[in-house]
Each structure stands twice: as structure tokens, then as C-alpha cells.
């Protein structure tokens, strides 16, 4: 974990979501429910949640690919619905399924980016790709999943955008490719003082590089905090040992042992790992949704 959580928080968030709900007309299901979220400028924030939690939907609303059914999103203070060009100009985006033009070479992708994005830094992109040993003459269709993700990240970084939105870019990568990807991301973001939001459903992937955490479960934001603070303010305890109002949720550890995640700074209780913290909040979201369903029934 980095030390970035100790930095002074700027007043203007890089990304905001205010009461955002999104319902897909085709399926009728709600992907997001009154999601409130702020991503501080200059942070690397992990957006964590299980598959179907609404991570991609939330990111896509910031890029202007989705319109919230209710609520408001802002990118650097700009509402993409009112000024999509302004919002997109502030964003570098890597999509969940890295889609490059299979028939074009890597070099042609850089040319394409240069023609579409004013200020695209072609030289920086080439230098990064050279470091990664990805030839510019190679066709995108012949790149491995890891290489394609690296190319997409290089393009996003070379836009010079102050905000990077990375939608599960690690999902299809092997451990070495993940390591390379995260190294490239962290060095570039720190170098430029940019803000990055990295979504993943694998906590261990983001633990090493992120300083902020957002947990999204069942379409709701259940936790958002600097990772250090979040861990410091929670403890693990035997089920039923703590007052109900302090208990976030009970969940089963990998061995099957039930345990409670509680809001407490009691030094006698063990601190949760990041994974346990996330597990607790996801369990809370699930039980909250279940009780809502029961009430509705």
C-alpha cells in the first residue's frame, strides 16, 4: 500500500457521482442504486465489487457512454451530459474488454489516437511501448491479451488526461502481465500527478497500488475511504460479541469460520485484511439487499 493516503485531500473531487441510479431498459434491472461517490484528485482509487455490482456502469457514465436514470455524475466538475466533449477530454479510458482494431498495427493505433485526440503524446507512447518490447509494426490482432491491455493503457496514458478510468483491465491478464501493467500505471500516474480509478473484482490486484477504496455491492456504494483509514477503523471479532450497531456484517472466512466485521478501533481485536474488509462490506450489501427484498415482498 502506498503512502498517498496521508496526502492532503483537495477540495474538488476528480470524479463525482451524486445519487446515481441506472436502470437498463432491456432487462429492467437496476445496475446502480443511489450511488454517491467522490474520487479525490491525485489518488489511485480501487473500485471493488463482485461481477454485476455496477462498476462498469458507473465508469461508463463518467465517460459518457451511459446516461444515469437518476442522479448526476461529474468529471472534474463537468457533467458529461451537458458537456461530453469537455468530460471526455479529461479522461483516459481503458475498457473492460480491450478492443483494438485487429487489422491495424500498434503504430497505426498511435497514429489513430493522434488524429482523434488533440495533444496526444505520440513520442511518450512509443517510448513506453519500446520499454514493454511491443513492436510498433505488430498487428493488434496478433497481440496477447496482456500486450493488448498494455497498448490500451499506453494510449490512455499518452492522452495526457488528468483522470484515468480503468475498467477491469487486469481481468484477463496473467500474473506477470498484471505486474507489468500495474507498474506502468503507477509510475505514469505518480509522474504526472494524475487521478486513476481502477476497477476490479480481485482485491489482491489493487491492494499494492491503490490508496483509496470504494466498495460497490448490489449497485450501492457501501464503503469509500482511504485504505489505511478504513482498515484502522475496523476490527474482526467473534459473531455476536459486538453491539449490532457497530457490526457491519458477518461473513465466512475461506475455511468456513464465521466472523464479524465491526466498526471499532479496539486494539485487542485483530485488524482485517483489505480482502476481509471488502468481504464484510459486500456481505453487508447482500444482506441489505435481501432485507429490502423481504420488505418489498
Amino acid at each position, binding site marked *: 500500500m502506498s503512502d498517498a493516503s496521508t496526502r492532503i485531500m483537495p477540495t474538488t473531487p476528480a470524479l463525482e457521482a451524486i445519487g446515481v441510479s441506472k436502470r437498463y431498459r432491456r432487462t429492467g434491472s437496476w445496475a446502480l442504486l443511489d450511488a454517491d461517490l467522490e474520487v479525490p484528485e491525485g489518488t489511485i482509487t480501487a473500485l471493488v465489487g463482485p461481477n454485476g455490482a455496477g462498476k462498469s456502469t458507473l465508469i461508463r457514465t463518467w465517460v459518457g457512454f451511459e446516461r444515469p436514470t437518476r442522479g448526476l455524475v461529474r468529471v472534474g466538475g463537468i457533467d458529461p451530459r451537458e458537456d461530453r*466533449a469537455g468530460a471526455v477530454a479529461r479522461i483516459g479510458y481503458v475498457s473492460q474488454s480491450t478492443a483494438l482494431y485487429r487489422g491495424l498495427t500498434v503504430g497505426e493505433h498511435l497514429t489513430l489516437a493522434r488524429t482523434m485526440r488533440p495533444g496526444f503524446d505520440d513520442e511518450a507512447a512509443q517510448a513506453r511501448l519500446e520499454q514493454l518490447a511491443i513492436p510498433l509494426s505488430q498487428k493488434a490482432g496478433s497481440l496477447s491479451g496482456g500486450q493488448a491491455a498494455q497498448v490500451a493503457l499506453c494510449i490512455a496514458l499518452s492522452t495526457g488526461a488528468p483522470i484515468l478510468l480503468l475498467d477491469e483491465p487486469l481481468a484477463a491478464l496473467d500474473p506477470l502481465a498484471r505486474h507489468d501493467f500495474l507498474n506502468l500505471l503507477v509510475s505514469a500516474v505518480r509522474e504526472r500527478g494524475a487521478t486513476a480509478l481502477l476497477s476490479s473484482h480481485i482485491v489482491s490486484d489493487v491492494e499494492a497500488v491503490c490508496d483509496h477504496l470504494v466498495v460497490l455491492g448490489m449497485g450501492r456504494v457501501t464503503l469509500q475511504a482511504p485504505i489505511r483509514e478504513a482498515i484502522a477503523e475496523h476490527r474482526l471479532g467473534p459473531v455476536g460479541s459486538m453491539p449490532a450497531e457497530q457490526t457491519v456484517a458477518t461473513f465466512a472466512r475461506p475455511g468456513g469460520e464465521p466472523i464479524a466485521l465491526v466498526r471499532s478501533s479496539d486494539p485487542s481485536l485483530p485488524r482485517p485484511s483489505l480482502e476481509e474488509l471488502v468481504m464484510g462490506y459486500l456481505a453487508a450489501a447482500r444482506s441489505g439487499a435481501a432485507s429490502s427484498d423481504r420488505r418489498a415482498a
Partner: protein
Amino acid sequence: MLRAAWLTYRMHQFEVLVSAILMTVLAISVWIVSSHVTSLDIAGTCWAGDRISRQPVCESFREIARSEAGYAKAGLGLVGPIVGLILGVPIVAREVELRTTSLAWSLTPHRGRWLLSRLLPMLALAVAGFVVLGWLGSGLFEAMEVGPVSPSLTEVASQGPTLVARGLMALGIAVLAGAVIGRTMPAFVVAAVAVIAWSFIGVPAVQQSMFADRAVWTDDVNGYRDGIGPLGTVASGEFDTSIPGVDGEPGARFDYEAFNRQQVEMCGQPPEETVFNDTPEWRSWQTCAEQFPYPEDMYWNKLVLASTYPDFQQAELAVDGVIGGVAFLLTFPVVARRRPS
């Protein structure tokens, strides 16, 4: 700009290659057929001289009209819509289908400019090809339509600016269908159905409505070229517009005497003898012998004079232009609002 155009061609290289080959092969074919027909000197040889000496030329002309010129004309009629569909559908649909729009639309602050950067190179290719083919098509029709042979309304979009307009209209419909549907094959089918429906239902409907004002009843079909249903055009010189038509309205009647005089002058005998003694299956494009029913077997048709043909071409141009233009314009808000996948 040139770099963006080159990349667009690279992205759609299969469609670009297929379209370029299709248009080039057709252009060369039309040019060869036109040269062949021109070299026969139909007007000078088949329409003049004695019957024996002109017979081989007329036979050659008939053969060409039936075979290669027929294929070339059919190709000219189809090439605009086909190339329009091939080039137009994948411009947006392929990118949505393969999800490359996620990359492109996150890079470009203005989707309208992105669409233009994809659209303009394809339009440039289509316009260049269609203009050349339209010009060559006009040459072919000019070479074929000599003497009293009149132009056919079904072939109105196989030559000149109307070929360009029909092709661009198809391209516009194809781009819009691709943007709305976001899948290449379904969009291709929908756009093809729309273009076919327009060509075979919409165009005749427009022509019919124009006919209402201009058509005249006639009791014969000299110079008549089949349109769809009762539509057709006739050469103007053989009608006496002072005689009322069968419906009692002022119209044109076929002037037998003038026709017979012309036939005797050109063929050396009245048309009845020419037709029924020689080759009754001959059609109107032939010069010296027309299918010519006897007066008691006459059937009546509503025809327009060939001099009004440019009006039909202009109507086709205008309507194709409006449909294509609206389709292109509608694509912009569709792209601006749609999800990338």
C-alpha cells in the same frame, strides 16, 4: 486528414477492395461495350442504306443489346446500391460490433468529427467511382438509344447523375442502419430491404405520380420501352397531340401514317410486313422493325413523351438526394446518443 482517411481505408480494407474491384471491372466492361456499339455506327449504317447491307449490322446490334449491353446496363443499375451498402454498413456497425467504439469514442471529444473522419473517405471513394460509372453509363445509353428508340424509366438510375444519387442514397441508408442497429449483417439486410423497396416500390410510385400529369393515352407502342406496369416513354416525333386520347382528354394518338412513312423510308416496306414476315420477336430497341399489332388487336397504353425524360431524372435526383441527405444527417445524432456497444 489524409492520415485519418488512410486509416479508415485500412480498417475497412475488405469492403474498400471489393467495391474498388467491382466498380473498376464494371467501368472497363461498360467502356468496352460502348466502344463496340459506337464502332457499329448504328445510326449511320443500320438506319440508312438498303435493307440487305444493313441487316448484319442490325443483327450485331441486336446481339449486343441482348447480351453484353444488357449485362452492362443491369450492372450499372445495381452497382450504386450494392457499393453503397457494402461501404456504408460497416462504417459504424462494425466498430460497435467489435467494440472498438469504446476506444475511439473515449479518445475523441467529438463523436461527430469521428463520424466525419470515417464517412468522408468512404464517400470520396463512392463518389469517384459513381461519377466515372455514371459518365460511362451515359455514354453507353447514348450509343444504344439511336433512332426512335426511347429511354426506359426503369433504367433512369443507370446513368449520369442519377446513378451517383441512387448509390449515395444507398450509402446514407446503410450508414444510418449500421449506426442504429450496431450489427453488420442485420444492418446490411435492413438497409438492403430499404433500398430494394425504394427502387421497386418508391421510385415507380414517384414516377406514377408524375405520370398523372404528363402521360397520354396511346394506342400503340412504337418506340415504347417497358417500364413497370403501364409506364414507359415514347419517342416524340410520331405522335399527333391534337387528337384526343381514349379517355376523351387531350392526348396523343399514334400517327400511323407518319410511322408507315418512316418505316417505308427506312426499311423499304410497311412495318406489318417487316415484323411478321421477318422476326416477330424483335423488340423496340430494334430500328427497322417494331412489334406492331394490327389495329383490331390494339391495346392502349399510357406513355410519356421522351422529351419529358429529364424531368424524371431530376425527380429521381431530388428524392434520392433528400433521402440520402436525411439519412446521413440522422446518423450524427444516433451516433452521439448511442452506447458504444
